[in-house]
């Protein structure tokens, strides 16, 4: 839209440079954040009772076995040395070897990350449009029946814990009706249809969890804009109401909405632990919990880095979208 007016055309490159500048600054601070997070994760997990050697050998460990395995795993070296070595590996793009699985961390994550991304992707594709539709509908019919029904629905979605949603879903759709599998059987062999069927209940549960927050945020942002003078002006000019909402109000409201969406979606990767547990979904969140309980430091660190990076990336995208949609923020 800017290209049509010469005075805006001059501003466009400036906007681009602002964004590039922002992205560059954010990338630098993201690296620093990742470094700090890795130090914190390493330090705190080091405080947990027991180490990978003890957890691997379990209840039946003898001191001699523990010492031998500790040596084999390299856990007999001081913590800072191990950390620096891990850091060196990461800088060479090598996340190291899992202490417990005896496999490269890269391979383990390569198996799980696509599953988590798929789950998050399916959920986002369903949840974001649904939340926008609900939020817009509620805002437009503010105070009316539709608004009250939607508010009640979203509030109860926030209030109901996801394990209850998941368990009820399984009881109804799997055990009683036998429509959908009760556990997610995701594998490379499964056909697309099977995979979608497997993911149906987890996606439904996660949608339930994330949609409410986004819908309420959309409603609030839209209402703030619907009260603005320019909306009234557009209405007086005879612009159709649908067009006002989508073309005039939406770009102004998008900032907070995208922010809410980014926060909700970042939850899908790391926060899906309950859904992963109930549906036995082989995702990253349960992998990280595994890594914590088995004290598998390289694996734990890599998972933490991925979650942290995903979060930073989503927040960055939200900021960029907000700036693009609102020229005032480019200054």
């Amino acid at each position, binding site marked *: 839209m800017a290209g049509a007016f010469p005075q805006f055309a001059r501003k466009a490159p400036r906007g681009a440079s602002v964004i590039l500048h922002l992205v560059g600054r954010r990338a630098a601070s993201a690296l620093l954040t990742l470094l700090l997070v890795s130090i914190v994760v390493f330090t705190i997990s080091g405080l*947990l*009772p*027991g180490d990978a050697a*003890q*957890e*691997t*050998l*379990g*209840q*039946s*460990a*003898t001191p*001699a*076995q523990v010492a*031998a*395995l500790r040596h*084999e795993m390299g856990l007999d070296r001081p913590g800072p040395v191990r950390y620096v070595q891990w850091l060196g590996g990461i800088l060479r793009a090598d996340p190291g070897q*899992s202490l*417990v*699985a*005896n*496999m490269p961390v890269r391979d*383990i994550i390569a*198996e799980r990350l696509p599953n988590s991304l798929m789950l998050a992707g399916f959920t986002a594709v369903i949840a974001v449009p649904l939340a926008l539709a609900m939020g817009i509908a509620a805002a437009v019919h503010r105070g009316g029946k539709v608004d009250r029904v939607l508010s009640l629905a979203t509030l109860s979605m926030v209030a109901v814990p996801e394990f209850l949603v998941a*368990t009820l879903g*399984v*009881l109804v759709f*799997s*055990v009683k009706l*036998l429509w959908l*599998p*009760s*556990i997610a*059987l995701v*594998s490379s*062999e499964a056909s697309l249809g099977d995979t979608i069927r497997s993911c149906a209940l987890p996606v439904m549960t996660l949608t339930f969890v994330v949609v409410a927050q986004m819908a309420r945020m959309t409603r609030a942002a839209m209402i703030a804009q619907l009260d603005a003078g320019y909306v009234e002006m557009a209405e007086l000019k005879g612009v159709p109401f649908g067009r006002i909402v989508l073309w005039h109000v939406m770009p102004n409201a998008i900032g907070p909405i995208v922010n809410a969406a980014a926060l909700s979606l970042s939850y899908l990767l790391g926060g899906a632990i309950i859904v992963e*547990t*109930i*549906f*036995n979904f*082989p995702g990253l969140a*349960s*992998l990280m919990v*595994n*890594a*914590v*309980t*088995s004290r*598998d430091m390289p*694996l734990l660190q890599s998972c933490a880095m991925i979650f942290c990076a995903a979060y930073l990336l989503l927040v960055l995208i939200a900021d960029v979208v907000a700036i693009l949609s609102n020229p005032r923020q480019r200054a």
Partner: protein
Amino acid sequence: MSGGGFSRRTALAGGLAGAGLLAFGRAQDVLAVPRRGGSIRVATQSSSTADTLDPAKASVSTDYVRIGMVYEGLTTPDANLRPVPALAESLESRDRQTWIVKLRRGVTFHDGGDFTADDVVFSLLRHKDPATASKLAGIAAEFASVRASGRHEVTIRLAAPNADLPAILSQPQFAIVRKGDIHPRGNGTGPFRVRHFQPGVRTVGERFADYWMPGRPYLDRIELIAIPDEVSRVNALLAGDCQMINAVNPRSIRRIEASGSHRVMATPSGLYTDLIMRADAAPTGNPHFVEAIKHLIDRPLVKRALFRGHATIGNDQPIPPFHPYYNPNIPQTTLDLDRARWHIAKAGLKGVRVPLYCSPAAEGSVDMASIIQEFGAQAGLELAVNRVPADGYWSTHWMRHPMTFGNVNPRPTADLLFSQFYKSNGDWNETGWKNERFDRLLADARSQPDEALRKEIYGEMQRIVHDKAGTAIPVFISLIDGYDKRIKGLHPIPLGAFMGYRFSQHVWLDA
């Protein structure tokens, strides 16, 4: 060794030194005609990135099932906990110190290689290498030498006589791998070959066509997954997403049976959760204190309330009543508040606060602690119950305070239980007690050739533990499996769920 031919009975019921002839399955399994084909999915309760195809590292039920599908040991335990031949045809010894193991011929590994004595020598000796991180390194230390004395014969020389070698070799960790496989990846002789293996996700086994037992296995494919959440596991069974599950909570039994198409199998087992009172700490080192605690446990209540009846009452010694060496003549300890009061007064502990550590890591211990605390209060003993998280429990709490709970899995022999948990220098001498007579009897029993005398010796050891050791064993916990009733050929083996984890070659699908 019984005569030639490979009928099902003769193949399995060969003669082993120390073990009598035993028919394998129950009568009904022999009568029903097994059907070939079909594919099932089996879900156990735990799985992680630590899942392994290395028998030496096997440590949880999922590992045992996987190892049982892919590999085999020289011997395997039967329903009466006696070892019967598997890859060995016979194990013989005159002095119980030097053993001649005759191996089965015509057995092939999944990669097509012949199974020979070299594979056995390699598989047994690798446990002695610390780099293997074997769970049974302590037991393997007793192999003084293992050498091939023929292409199909191995001579094992032990550091000291041990009549239990056939049973010891039946443990999943001693399964045979291919010579040279330092990190075994599934090349075994077992009934199923590995098709897919993703640690923490699943294992797919497909029927090994060249398996040595004719006609076996019956199933074409077994997929092994884990569903750690019990409710999800039961739901998956009822929804038909898997056909066999283990570790069913007694509370779920009614749900499974109500479905009409599923059944449960309860396996009385030697699994127990014990209250450990350290002999080297105060006040738990005081025999009066130990006696008082043992009389403060309402065992029928533990059995009824915690396990809904799926348990066997214990008597503070680790041999369960269905074990061949069980001593039935030891009087049963029961809840007796008066006696407990008397012992508490004798120990001078009235009103003293004693901490007690329990954790979900030791099954049922949290509820047991509450029960003991309640009766303790009635008898004038104040127990402070500390509930600690399961994570890290074994390395930071177990045996490290005067009163903690342990959880002991079934062991294939009485000797292993006693030598690991009660011998003065045992690896996990939980109470830290020392009893010279007990240690001497343990060594005697190992070298005792006469079965009746061994039973007598083990009987006396049970009495000593019952009377003197600081472990209270309220009940033995039954293992509960749930399965689709089309699955046939299952029967309990008290060493673990799913027929002691060895169901894969026995079950078939009746479509």
